[in-house]
């Protein structure tokens, strides 16, 4: 059933779009323009349906629920991934824009807007995506879990596996083996689950090559996710949790740890020590010439005497607060997210009015529940 086609009583508009057609059996590729009449409320998916019905039955795209939950209709509009069912056409028509529709990126195209999701699912499987309760005896009824303790994975549990984040992932473009935002978000869905007892194994695996530290933090995944999963935030939570649990065999983790250590000790980034602390002595010796050149041109300060900020006590106090309030690890990120959500939804003024006063250098208030 094409929903758009049968509701003829609604006001209509003329919609134009261009679609990159592709035939994997011949390798032929062409940009075709289509113009159809459609009700004003149509989505991109409705327009594709009208094109397929009335213009060209060979147009291929996936669809099912048309209500943003099945994840079938991920595709690109003007080069950025969208769910076709979630994209209203009226605003584009109003400004006379003719969008270009193409298949998602970072996945092989099979036909027109249909991609091979095989690599996507392979990466989901690579994060052992099922609950592992370890050797703990299973309860007769349900696990007893506070709402507070499951809320941290609610965003990741929302993921509909549409692939929009993977389509836009810069790291995956450079390294096709990178696990990618969707699989890593799925990984955090288990690491953050209080019922799961395999988090150390999971974090060790996710810290390997092509894992969390290969993310370039471009935030395109957060931007393109149609469900608000924020995969980059999940990756950040995995990183923080890894460091907290002492899983730091990757250079990325060591790099991150040195930022913290530097800020805590001097209030600045101790750049000259960054390479030895991250990559080790051998790599540092190899890069010595480069480092000397940087120093000669004033690009990095000399390591001695250490360059200490005037108000280094503020930096140290901040560090202490995060430790005392248990804001290290994934939970710290979650608390931050919740604070932002409160600001966004319930406190248009910005800051929380009931926020406790924190005076730097003094004992911080206890963590909130």
């Amino acid at each position, binding site marked *: 059933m094409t*929903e758009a086609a*049968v509701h003829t009583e609604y006001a209509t508009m003329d919609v134009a779009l261009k679609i990159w057609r592709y035939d994997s059996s011949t390798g032929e590729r062409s940009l075709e323009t289509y113009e159809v009449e459609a009700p004003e409320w149509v989505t991109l998916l409705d327009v594709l349906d009208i094109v397929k019905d009335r213009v060209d039955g060979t147009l*291929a795209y*996936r669809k099912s629920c048309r209500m943003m939950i099945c994840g079938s209709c991920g595709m690109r509009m003007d080069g950025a991934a969208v769910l076709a069912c979630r994209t209203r056409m009226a605003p584009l028509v109003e400004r006379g824009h003719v969008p270009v529709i193409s298949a998602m990126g970072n996945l092989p195209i099979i036909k027109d807007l249909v991609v091979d999701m095989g690599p996507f699912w392979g990466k989901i499987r690579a994060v052992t995506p099922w609950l592992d309760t370890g050797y703990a005896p299973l*309860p007769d009824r*349900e*696990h007893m879990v506070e709402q507070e303790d499951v809320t941290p994975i609610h965003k990741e*549990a929302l993921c509909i596996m549409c692939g929009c984040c993977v389509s836009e992932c810069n790291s995956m473009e450079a390294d096709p083996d990178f696990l990618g935002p969707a699989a890593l978000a799925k990984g955090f869905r288990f690491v953050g689950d209080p019922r799961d007892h395999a988090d150390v194994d999971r974090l060790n695996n996710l810290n390997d090559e092509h894992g969390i530290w290969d993310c370039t933090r471009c935030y395109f995944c957060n931007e393109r996710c149609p469900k608000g999963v924020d995969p980059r935030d999940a990756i950040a939570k995995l990183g923080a949790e890894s460091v907290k649990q002492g899983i730091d065999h990757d250079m990325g983790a060591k790099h991150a740890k040195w930022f913290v250590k530097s800020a805590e000790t001097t209030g600045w980034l101790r750049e000259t020590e960054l390479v030895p602390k991250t990559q080790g002595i051998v790599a540092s010796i190899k890069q010595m010439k480069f480092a000397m050149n940087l120093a000669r041109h004033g690009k990095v300060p000399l390591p001695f005497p250490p360059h200490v900020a005037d108000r280094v006590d503020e930096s140290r106090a901040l560090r202490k607060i995060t430790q005392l309030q248990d804001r290290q690890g994934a939970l710290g990120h979650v608390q931050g997210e919740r604070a932002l959500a409160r600001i966004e939804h319930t406190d248009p003024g910005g800051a929380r009015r009931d926020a406790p006063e924190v005076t730097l250098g003094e004992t911080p208030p206890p963590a909130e529940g």
Partner: protein
Amino acid sequence: MVEAKHDVLVVGAGCAGMRAAIEAFDAGADVAIISKIHPVRSHSGAAEGGINAALGNASDDSPEKHAFDTVKGSDYLGDQDAIEILCNEAPGDVYQLERWGAVFSRTDEGTIAQRPFGAAGAPRTAYAADITGHVLIQVLYEQIMKRDIRVYEEYFAWKLVVDDDRCQGVIAWNILHGGVAAIGAKTTIVCTGGAGRLYVGTTNAYACTGDGMALALRAGVALEDMEMMQFHPTTLSPTGVLITEGTRGEGAYLLNSEGDRFLKRYAPNAMELASRDVISRAEQTEIDEGRGVDGNVLLDLRHLGAEKILERLHGTRELAMVFAGVDPIDQPIPVRPGAHYHMGGVDTDVWGRTSLEALYAAGECACVSVHGANRLGGNALMETITFGKRAGAHAAEWALTHTTVTVPESAQADAEREVKTLLDRTEGERPWAIRDSLAQTMHENFGVFRREDEMQRQGEIIAALQDRYAHVVVDDKGDVFNNDLTQALELGFLLELAECMVMAGLARKESRGAHARPYDYPERDDEEYLKHTIVRRTDSGLMLDWKPVDITKWQPMERTY
């Protein structure tokens, strides 16, 4: 050539299909799933509100109370033996889902949270915010991955292989790469969901084209209570996108154009939490009598407050904003009844067995029957899990005690010839106008309220559409992702099911549950019609029959809310 042979082949990968596959695998069978869409794309994932089980986490509850509510909700057409099984096994099955990792919302004590739902005597609906179906689909697929169960993804099951009077697998079309494939199996479980695409305004996905029911019908298997199509009271205009009953469970109001909570005139006690058929009829009456708002009524959430809406009804808010341009924090949502759930389906016993040996059915495509003439919100997910499990267990046991699978070469050859005939045809009509016309007329003539003359006219319309369908032309002649072909085949399924529905609807000369005939037979008639309709295809066409309702302990009473 037979692509593969399995002990158990599950057709469809929604909650029922995946649950059946897991159970059969754990019983030691070689299991495979075949699905025209990837498992997580299945429409079970769109279920929002929750899953009913008498856990007693929110108040005193018992399987017995759950069973009574279900029997009453079914307008006494539900089979009470099946309902008792469902309600007794439900708590254990929900705990199982939780232990597998389902992310349920929680009570203050840390148990699974439960909310009130329509026509339920206790807050019994376990939920995960308003994405319960999504959470269950995810956890079941996780368990499928854990067991490494073979999934034939994007294979369209088109015919059942029947040989030696038993079902021995399916003939399928490979959507991704083209070609007819024969997959043999000792037992086949169809779990293909509903047929909501028969209607223009429906909550159902494009994939819900009644495939399993039609496969069974064509194999001569009985379909039960096909006239019973539930209209959900809160779907968005114009597309029919579902707004969960959970909104009313959380306290939302239904208002007419006068700002009146009109349900006080239809269900003064239960109000917005009356049964779905009752509310849909009330809404349609308000709209028909001129108290609607542009053909809708209003679902008002504003008094719930931003915090509750954001926490528990986040997805609902997003749907309303994207598809109706309304933020429910500030404005009421325009809603109307839309086709939602098929209580009828393939006639099965309490183990999912059909009238054809080695063929099983579970979930919405089956009719056990636990929903009778009207399903309660939250009982559908529960049915998929409990009866999916039972069908998987029985099918595995049968398969492990029987040895051979025969797929006659002619079965595949016939299918290939049929595809070729269809693809070679160049002169004729493309399917979409037939499909749109079917959906529009089903809505007009076989909707919330039914009239004898309209149903008869609908029968004639369907016959005319079938004549047109016989000459249908497929535009795409290629092999790669040819869903132009599969969509044409789906339309063939829908037309046959529509015929069955009209036949059963005309036969039931009473008003019961979803089958409302206020103009000629306004009352329920237990003397004559406390029985199931059965439709079967025979050599001389469709045949109508009846089957008694199983009554264990609840005699029919008047049904008020």
